[in-house]
């Protein structure tokens, strides 16, 4: 009963996907939440529709590169306008998010292929293949190396961009490196997680961990634990209840963790 799922290859692949995606989401999610960029990553997810649309219009057989390139351009542009402080951040992100979805829908409906890509909305983690798992492993290794080298600088920028800048840290460059990392990971994962829920998976474990974490270290460790717990329990639960889609189950469990930790938070 407990390990019956292991006999199926798609479940083993999904299991590996969860233990690769959740650490990736934990690393990015903690900084996204600390930087107040939850809507930023949400808008980025929405832009994936346009990326796919461009891929389809260009007649590409593999639309992922088009999605990633478009998402990077989209993220850098959104970041530039966000940092110019000419308009309030939520307005800028709202505009980008809406335009990303609308343009994507127009491109896909013009090419008559919207129904084919509807699965992008909710994703399907059970469809992940071995080669995609290898790609995820490489991405995780790359982000881990980036974090080992740059985390302290990212952390300081998050605490005070002015202090970071006064110490010669290239704030603008690292900010762009961070949003590019988010863009790439979101685009790689969206096919399995779905654009409706990807942001919830990115931010919910981190938001829950913030309630109870007492340092940057425990923040990341707890986010990782909450992410893996939700991911694996969600996968197991949906296997035993075929009516429950995996992605939404994972998000629901993360949501429960968020509310439980909310009541456990240290209010002193």
């Amino acid at each position, binding site marked *: 009963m407990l390990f019956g799922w292991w006999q199926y290859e798609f479940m083993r692949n999904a299991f590996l996907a969860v233990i690769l995606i959740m650490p990736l989401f934990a690393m990015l999610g903690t900084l996204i939440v600390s930087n107040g960029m939850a809507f930023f990553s949400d808008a980025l997810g929405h832009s994936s529709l346009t990326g796919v649309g461009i891929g389809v219009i260009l007649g590409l057989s593999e639309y992922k590169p088009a999605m990633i390139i478009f998402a990077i351009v989209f993220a850098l542009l959104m970041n530039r306008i966000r940092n110019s402080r000419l308009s309030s951040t939520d307005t800028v992100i709202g505009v980008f998010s809406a335009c990303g979805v609308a343009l994507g829908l127009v491109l896909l409906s013009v090419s008559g292929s919207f129904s084919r890509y509807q699965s992008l909305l909710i994703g399907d983690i059970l469809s992940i293949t071995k080669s995609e798992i290898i790609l995820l492993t490489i991405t995780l290794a790359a982000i881990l190396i980036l974090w080992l080298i740059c985390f302290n600088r990212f*952390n300081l920028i998050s605490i005070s961009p002015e202090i970071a*800048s006064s110490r010669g840290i290239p704030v603008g460059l690292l900010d762009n490196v961070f949003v590019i990392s988010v863009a790439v990971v979101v685009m790689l994962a969206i096919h399995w997680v779905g654009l409706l829920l990807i942001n919830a998976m990115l931010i919910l474990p981190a938001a829950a961990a913030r*309630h109870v974490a007492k340092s940057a*270290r425990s923040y990341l*460790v707890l986010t990782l634990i909450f992410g893996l717990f939700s991911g694996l329990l969600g996968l197991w639960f949906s296997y035993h209840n075929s009516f429950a889609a995996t992605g939404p189950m994972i998000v629901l469990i993360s949501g429960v963790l968020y509310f439980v930790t909310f009541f456990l938070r240290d209010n002193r």
Partner: protein
Amino acid sequence: MKACSLHCLKIENISVAIGDNAILRDVSLHAHCGELTAIIGKNGAGKSTLLRAILGEIPHTGTVFFSGHDGSPAGGLKIGYVPQSLSVDSGSPTTVYDMLASMISNYPVFLQRRQKTVSRLRDHLSAFNASHLLYKKLDRLSGGELQRVLLAAATLRKPDLLLLDEPVSGVDYSGLQLFYNILDSLKKSCDMVILIVSHDLDFVRRYADKVVLLNRRVEAAGSPDEVFKSGEFKRLFSITDAAKG
């Protein structure tokens, strides 16, 4: 180490404008090592903007020149900056250790703490009466505690130039007294130029060596007595304001 009094920060004709709105016009000032120079002025006078221009964070005209004791340019100017506040919001798990360790080392703060780093930070913080705050979350610090921690952070790598943007609120009188005492001992013992934007005229009068009265341009500059007795000061600050400090 004793202050050498010979390093000099020369700010010449700094102007900052956003569109047609001139925020600073031709601001010039000289500040020397071992001196505490206070920048005072009403809200909107451009005090924080001047600090940001010196930091190179905003587009400006004019020059900022830091020279060695022989008047030659001092290369690799190290700046310590104490901002008015942090971007950390309420509920952030970031501790004082996380912030300071991020400044002195590239060893990620999400890994196991290194005893060497902990000892170094504890030693450094003790000079700021803040070693007990090492593991406290930043959002749980009082105004005075945060100010001392930020001062400790700014002096971690022995800067040549210390820029302080004093918080407007959240620090009580005893907290301010402690802060200025620490600043005074730093001034006497360390080799650095100190420039502080201050809203507390009483402390400025007692601790500053030089005062610059700013109102988008330099209205008056000199010793605290000279500036506080100037007509420009009396015009900009009513007696009630001065008494409130």
